[in-house]
């Protein structure tokens, strides 16, 4: 098995909220509440869950865009919290991000060429101007764009082309890890497959490692080697792709899979659907015990009493459910 690239240990990120105009008592949003996982070099870990489950905050902590409340993030052997400014700068290069909305993450006043050349210059990766132009050209071709796209502005490109620029910008830093935060969910269906294929090609060519954050379970199944399902700040199930989709253990994973409509009317008519009651509770005031118990079709009395730990139920198949 290949080496461990990233290790996240008991990551916690709480945000304090409240106050407001009249003061009032502040609350604590437990956005990420004890998340641990390991990413090996060259693999893709899918992080799935619904809005507010903490998947994006987890990614932002790894990207050093949020300071964790507690827990450790070890990347390429070093604890991120222990690094000095110069070392952090180097790490920031090695961990890149692709955002959901390529439009709001590209500066509308810069041409695509400028957008791609700037980080090369700032980080001193390519110091000479002429060489930078060549590198930009090369990056464009790596993501399936043409040299003339360098002269265009973001608004002159389609959504899929803009996402290709976002990917090229991440590649420019020669990263080892890319956090892909909903990279295809803003794109049209016919374009999503293009971008997914591109991400897979780049991974194969450059040995990239992906943390693939998404809510679309079909896309996550396609691209991931392993998958972690999050609910209200915690991982509730984690295993390899095949077992997560074929032998899910946690009732939430099962409900999520059952909620995905399949493009086949005959199959849909035959399929049984578990429609979960209620909505995701507020992370300001999570339920007692298992945070999923108020919506769980299987819940029994003791589920409300104690938080079930994420435990290895079968070899390399973890679930946080007493009934699993």
């Amino acid at each position: 098995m290949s080496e461990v690239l990233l290790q996240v240990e008991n990551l916690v990120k709480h945000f304090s909220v409240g106050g407001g105009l009249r003061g009032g008592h502040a609350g604590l949003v437990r956005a990420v509440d004890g998340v641990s996982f390991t990413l090996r070099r060259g693999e893709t870990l899918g992080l799935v869950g619904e809005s507010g489950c903490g998947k994006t905050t987890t990614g932002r902590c790894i990207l050093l865009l949020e300071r964790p409340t507690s827990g450790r993030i070890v990347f390429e052997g070093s604890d991120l919290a222990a690094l000095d400014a110069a070392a952090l700068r180097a790490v920031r290069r090695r961990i890149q991000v692709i955002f959901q909305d390529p439009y709001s993450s590209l500066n509308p006043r810069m041409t695509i060429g400028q957008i791609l050349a700037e980080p090369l210059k700032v980080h001193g990766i390519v110091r000479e101007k002429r060489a930078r132009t060549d590198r930009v050209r090369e990056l464009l071709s790596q993501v399936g764009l043409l040299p003339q796209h360098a002269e265009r502005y973001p608004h002159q490109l389609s959504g899929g082309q803009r996402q290709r620029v976002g990917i090229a910008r991440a590649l420019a830093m020669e990263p080892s890890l890319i956090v892909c935060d909903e990279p295809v969910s803003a794109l049209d269906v016919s374009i999503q497959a293009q971008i997914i294929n591109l991400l897979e090609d780049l991974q194969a060519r450059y040995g990239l490692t992906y943390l693939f954050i998404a809510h679309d379970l079909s896309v996550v199944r396609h691209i991931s080697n392993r998958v972690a399902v999050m609910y209200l700040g915690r991982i509730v199930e984690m295993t390899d792709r095949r077992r997560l989709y074929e032998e899910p253990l946690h009732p939430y994973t099962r409900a999520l899979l059952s909620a995905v409509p399949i493009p086949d009317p005959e199959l849909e008519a035959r399929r049984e659907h578990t429609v979960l009651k209620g909505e995701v509770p507020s992370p300001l005031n999570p339920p007692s015990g298992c945070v999923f118990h108020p919506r769980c079709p299987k819940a029994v009395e003791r589920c409300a009493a104690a938080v079930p730990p994420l435990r290895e139920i079968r070899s390399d198949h973890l679930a946080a459910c007493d009934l699993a």
Partner: protein
Amino acid sequence: MAALLEVENLRTQFQTAAGTVQAVDGISYTVNEGETVAIVGESGCGKSVSALSVMRLVAEPAGRIESGRILYKGRDLLALSEEEMRDIRGREIAMVFQEPMTSLNPVLTIGRQLTEGPEIHLGMTQADARARAVELLGLVGISDPERRLAQYPHHFSGGMRQRLMIAMALACKPSLILADEPTTALDVTIQAQILELMRSLSRRLGVAMVIITHNLGVVARYADRVNVMYAGRIIEKGSAAEIYADPRHPYTLGLLRSVPRLDEPRRARLVPIEGQPPDLARLPPGCSFAPRCVYRTARCEAEAPALAAIGAPGHVAACWEAGRLTPRERAA
């Protein structure tokens, strides 16, 4: 089943900085009483504008319904006065939008927003309208309705707001609801709740529905009949079963092939539709899909195909090569 809505050769255009955009380019479809019809397509294909045209809510003067007929219960909506049209909106045809927060008034209570329709359209007294509002909240599964009526939209979650939108749409007992991406902004478990709710209400109350969506799974689960749109035109239509089992337009086939599916073994590689979505201001001559189409011939680039019958009764596709897209060819 009697036809409730018959859209005939509808054309809607917009004047933009880039030139004239034919957002809806001669589409025709029918919705029968009580049935659910889907309009599927990607962004910019004209699916939302087609619904706004039915409601006559296309923003003027940039947008304009050029021609066509929209027969609702036999009356042409395009021939009605603005006054008469107002009676149709809400009371006969209601609309549910994708983003409930932008269609609810943030400074009015839920109670006020739910009672306004019944008071104006049905002439209810305040007390009756309030009783109706309580009933509506119950209908869409919002508990504690008395307390909820005094609250504002920001007190509700995304899923709850969409329930409110459905309650408002149902307020005046319409015969038809146009739902424009009603669950796109919602999480998958909430999406399932809202779609089940819409389906059960539509069956129980006999309301016909037009679901406008880009999600092929949603269509498969909920629609009786499907219209697939591309670049302002309907390029294929038929029963849902037929469209999914025997797609005859390369775009429909491409869409179905490009999505990874949970019910099938994982494929090594996805099969995307190559190229970019069309720029409506600069459409190619001939078939708009031709530049991205793997089946294209010289004729496709010169001459736009019209919808023609193929396969089972009621199944039509606008493709010169539709006959080639047999199941054997598609499997290749």
